[in-house]
């Protein structure tokens, strides 16, 4: 049996400080991800083609082998923010089940942003790995 995994809630930290003081009650349990992570995940998902919000959420969950759990409300706000800043564009269309859905697709600006952010992320994880994989003798 697979070990129980604590899902990582993807919720940008800045949203907690909007208007009121953050309530840390529920957030203690979850691992807060670095700001901008959700944006990066969205951009990456859209690299494979236009998709609607629900599909993006499912896709992130599935691709991360259910480690990441996407907070849906935050996802849509993040989508809106990306759209406002021109990283993605949106269009109403029909889903596979013939439901009305808003499809998002990557713009040229979003594509280059994805490349930059992905590089940054790789450098970060590589550095983290280097440090975490040090053995006793080397340290």
């Amino acid at each position, binding site marked *: 049996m697979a070990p129980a995994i604590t899902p990582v809630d993807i919720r940008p930290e800045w*949203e907690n400080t*909007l*208007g*009121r003081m953050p309530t840390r009650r529920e957030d203690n349990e979850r691992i807060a991800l670095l700001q901008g992570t959700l944006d990066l995940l969205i951009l990456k998902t859209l690299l494979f083609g236009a998709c*609607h*919000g*629900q*599909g993006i959420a*499912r896709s992130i969950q599935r691709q991360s082998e259910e480690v990441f759990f996407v*907070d*849906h*409300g935050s996802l*849509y*706000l993040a989508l*809106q*923010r990306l*759209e*406002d*800043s021109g990283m993605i564009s949106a269009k109403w269309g029909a*889903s596979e*089940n013939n*439901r*009305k*859905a*808003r499809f998002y697709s990557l713009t040229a600006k979003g594509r280059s942003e994805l490349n930059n952010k992905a590089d940054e992320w790789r450098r970060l994880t590589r550095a983290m790995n280097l440090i975490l994989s040090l053995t006793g003798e080397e340290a």
Partner: protein
Amino acid sequence: MFSNRRSTDDFAEEIRAHLEMEADQLEAEGLPRAEAERRARVVFGNVASARERFALRHRVQWLGTIRQDVRFGFRMMRRNPGVTAVAILTLAIGIAASATVFSWIDAVLLEPLGGVTEANRLVTLETVTANGEWVPNSYPDFIDFRDHLKLFDGIAVSRPSAISVGRDEHAERVWGELVSGNLFAVLGVKPEAGRFFLPSEYGDTPGAFPVAVISDRYWRSHFGANPEVIGQTIRINQHELTIVGVAPPAFHGSMPVASFDLWVPYMQQPVLNGVKEWMLRDRHNRNMLGIARLKPGVSIDQARAELKGLADRMAVANADVSEGMSATLMPLTLSPHGPHALIRGPLRILMGVCVLVLFIVCANVVNLLLARATVRQREFNARIALGASRFRVARQVLTECLLLSGGGALFGICVTPWLTHALHYLTPPGPFQQLVSIDTRTNFALMAFTAGVCLFIALATGLFPALQVGRAHLSAGLNDGGRSGIVGRSHNRLRSALVVSEVALALVALVGAGRCGSGLFRRRAVGIRAQLVGRTSHRGLCA
């Protein structure tokens, strides 16, 4: 970012679509439909909150922080009631003084006549004597000007006059104007009730027009604003005149900063004042103040040239009385007759004094705020250490200053109407002193001015403390700042500089006030004879 804003309805629609698709998928994974829909909603979380965050995504951040700033500012004010009260009172004095002087300047220099239309086309018409003095006009000259000049929409004359109203034993003295019938038409005033003089009443037949117009103020105080007053008779100088109309509240007559209550056609003068009819035809009798409206697009220089040409020809034609005389035009505010001519000069000095007073007030409040800076500095350091940005803390300081100056402005604007009446005491004693009156209703210009002063004070007082925030050294402030560490030498230097400049400003203000006072005093001595009685050998302006 705001060019193609998405509606919240569109966002709600998207969320609804999401819930349906999620439910579809859960159903496909084997859940019953109802359970699938429930799960979709549970997993999504608070839909309303998401919609709210969407709607407020641009606004919420700064709106929320402004509210926090204001609330925190009020809390700080309450915590130091003494400092707050002193600061607000100081500011109230400064703001009230400057608002008062501004309302005088507004009445004398900026908007000399209330209730008129297109005041920028109105000019004063003056006769010029052979030795270059400006004097009022004679009625026959006025008729010539009125009938022969082409670049004017109209020329009117008026003459202030004390009038007794009522029967012998109850007679009351009221200030009115004897006017050419077209005065209201030339000024472009609209009646509050009834009508003004008709073109048929513009004529030059002595004693033919027993009609009168009353002011809004007189209408309210003596007739209870009764509209049936139109058509009633009013007893003026023991003669019955018919009230035909009421002037609007903003209109006080054709003389700046003076208020009149009655307007009677000049041609009633022989009946009312016992003036001989020949005097109306006498070109020596120069006692009519001229006011003219230029045609649209005509410059004052063009009109002046035309007027001068005519006046020069008249001086030749009537050489027996007008030899060497001419006529000229000038803006309303520069008219040499009336109370505004007496206070115009001192008012300019007063304006300068007022600016200085404002600076002194600002310096005082800055000093007050810096005195508390020791305490505040530790608080600011703590806030910065807790993660507030310096900009945010500096904005907090500015918000507090704005609250203080806003409070001061509130008090100041409350006492301004009373202070405005003090203009009465600035005017040299004499007939004009009773005439001087100023519209104390708060107008838009005054409000805008006060708001501007308020903002200026907030910036001026908040700048130093806010800059100090920017320079604060965190660790130094929190650690060895302790009880006294922060008030370093530079801080003391700043406060010393403030005190020195305050004393200097006060000195200059004192000198200015002295000059203003002595200017008024001189005018008291020589002004009355020269300005009021008239410069000609004939009957004075205010007979």
